[in-house]
Structure formats: structure tokens, C-alpha cells
């Protein structure tokens, strides 16, 4: 499957394939970071909730 084109006019008009590949690599890196942060945040809130429920004796 071909790589998606960057959504900027400049990219479509003047970037070489190597530049476009670099742009996509950077965007992918940012997206993975964001995914990691969001997943970590969800896990953190879940863990805090478990501990708090346990502390107040409402779970076990």
C-alpha cells in the first residue's frame, strides 16, 4: 500500500520523495508518542482508581 501524501500544499508541490518520507517518519513518531502518552494516562488513572477503592474498602 503506498504511503499517504502529507496534507500540505508545499509538500505535494515541492518535496522530493526522500523529504516526504522524512515528513511521514516524523509524523508517525509523534503519533506513536501521543498514543503511548494517552495509553499510559488511562492505565495510570485506572491504577489510581483501584488503589483508592482498595484503600476505602469498597472493592475487596
Amino acid at each position, binding site marked *: 500500500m503506498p504511503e499517504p501524501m502529507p496534507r500540505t500544499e*508545499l509538500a505535494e508541490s515541492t518535496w522530493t520523495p526522500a523529504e516526504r518520507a522524512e515528513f511521514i517518519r*516524523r509524523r508517525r513518531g509523534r503519533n506513536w508518542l501521543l498514543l503511548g502518552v494517552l495509553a499510559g494516562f488511562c492505565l*495510570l*488513572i485506572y*491504577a*489510581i482508581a483501584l*488503589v*483508592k477503592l482498595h*484503600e476505602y474498602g469498597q472493592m475487596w
Partner: protein
Amino acid sequence: MSETAFSAELGATASDWLALLKPRVLTLVVFTGAIGLVIAPVHMNPVLAITAILCITVAAGAAGAINMWYDRDIDAIMKRTSTRPIPAGRIAPGGALAFGVILAVLSVLVMAMATNLVAAAVLAISIAFYVFIYTMWLKRLTPQNIVIGGAAGAFPPVIGWAAATGNITALPILLFAIIFFWTPPHFWALSLYASGDYERAGVPMLPVVKGARHTRICIMVYTLILVPVTLAPFVFGLLGRIYGVSALVLGALFVAYSWRVLYDAQDERGVSLTRNAPARAAFKYSILYLFILFGACAVDRLV
């Protein structure tokens, strides 16, 4: 198109966003915050303890990001900071500000949820202090910026302690005072050999405004104030002999390093003739000093 401009056009990398958090500064923040938590006389659930340290770290990083947003004009002028993501054009200023504000708010909310309101309130105050008092007000106004602004970096052990206990007693206040009095000699040692950058940017750092000679004297004076402050937890019986001996030995060494800075070979204006070798050594030692001193706090409590 230049390499830098082209790199900016491609957008930020994930590491650019992480760089906004000033990761090198965070090391000390995490460590001192963790020590505040460890020496507190209360057992804390490990999940909540890790969350508290995470919140302190993220809050400090968020304050750093907002600082980079506000200081983007002078960062572009200074050689040391000109490659940061905002002056280099890889991250838009508005994006960096939003990033910092969101992280700051989240860190305070999560701290309140995981620990208690005292810790969350002190965390919020520390962010506000760094952003409004130091970055926006003092940094560009007075050569005493580091003295008062240094308080922002002194909050982590207090927050760590408050997260564990829900209150603030004499020991965390003394730990705050230690970092408060440690910051000026630490930073002024650096500014002795990096003052050219600050001068170009118009930041009134002490060597720029008062000269190198005056700065050397101030480093010595603050080191001499720091040593008795570090001994106070031992004198008042809050920490034991392991800490007391460590504080004494480390303090004596710090005074020796400051002495070498004061009597470095220099011209009549106090400018070093040795490429500031003693100031560089004092700066490096000051970092080691704080790590070992706070490490001794933890060892003293745990042994």
C-alpha cells in the same frame, strides 16, 4: 533552503516535544521530589508514590515548556538555546504554550486525585512561581533573579513530603531552604563562563550587571550561608549522624570549591585568566553535592 529551515518545515519530531520539558533539569527535580517522599514518616502505596513523582516531573516539565514559550525571543539570541524547538522553528509557540498549560493542569489534577489537596496546591504554586514570578517577572528585571527564582526549584521535596503526609513540617521546609541557598552558587558558577550569551540577550545575570568579581564574592557568601542551613536538620535532631557527617564533609568541599572560584587567577575586573576552570569545577561539584546530600537524607532515614 538551509538545513535548519528545511528541518523546521518538516515539523517536530517526538523528541522535540520531549525537549520542551527540559529533561536534563528534570533529573534533579525527580530526585529531590522522591527524597521528600521517601523520608516522610508515612508508608505510601507504591502506585500513589510513583504517581506523585510522575506529577512532580510532569509539572516541572510543563513549567519548562511555558518558560520556553515565553523566552523564545531570547532563546533565539543565545547560542546555548538557539537550537531549541521553538527558536529553531520546529514547534509553533502557541503549540508549546498549549502543551505546557495542558500538562500543568493535568499534573495538578492527578496529584489531587492520587494524593491530597495540600500536595496539589503546593505543586500548583510551584508552577505559578516558576512561570509568573521567575520567568515573566524577575528573570529580565533584576540580577537577583536566580536568588528568588531559585525557590521554584526548591519545591519538589516539599511536594513529595506533602504527597505522603498531607502536611508540611520543619524538615521539608529545611530541605526547601537547602535547595534555595544552593541554587545561587550553583547557577552563578555557570553564569561566570556563560555570561556572554546572557549579555547578548539582555538578561541581567549577576556577572553581566555587577561583574565577575562581585559574582565570585556572592558565590562564596551563599556557600557560607548554605553550609549551616544544611546542618540544621542534624542540629535540630530531624536527621541523624549519617546525614550530619555527610553535610559537614560535602559543605567543607563546597566551600573549598567556592574559595578556588574566588581566588581564581583573574584580571582587575575579576575575569578569569584560566578559562574559568575553577568555576566549571564548582558547577559540576554543586550538582554532585546536591545529589549526595539528598541521598544521605534517604540513607539516614532508611538505615
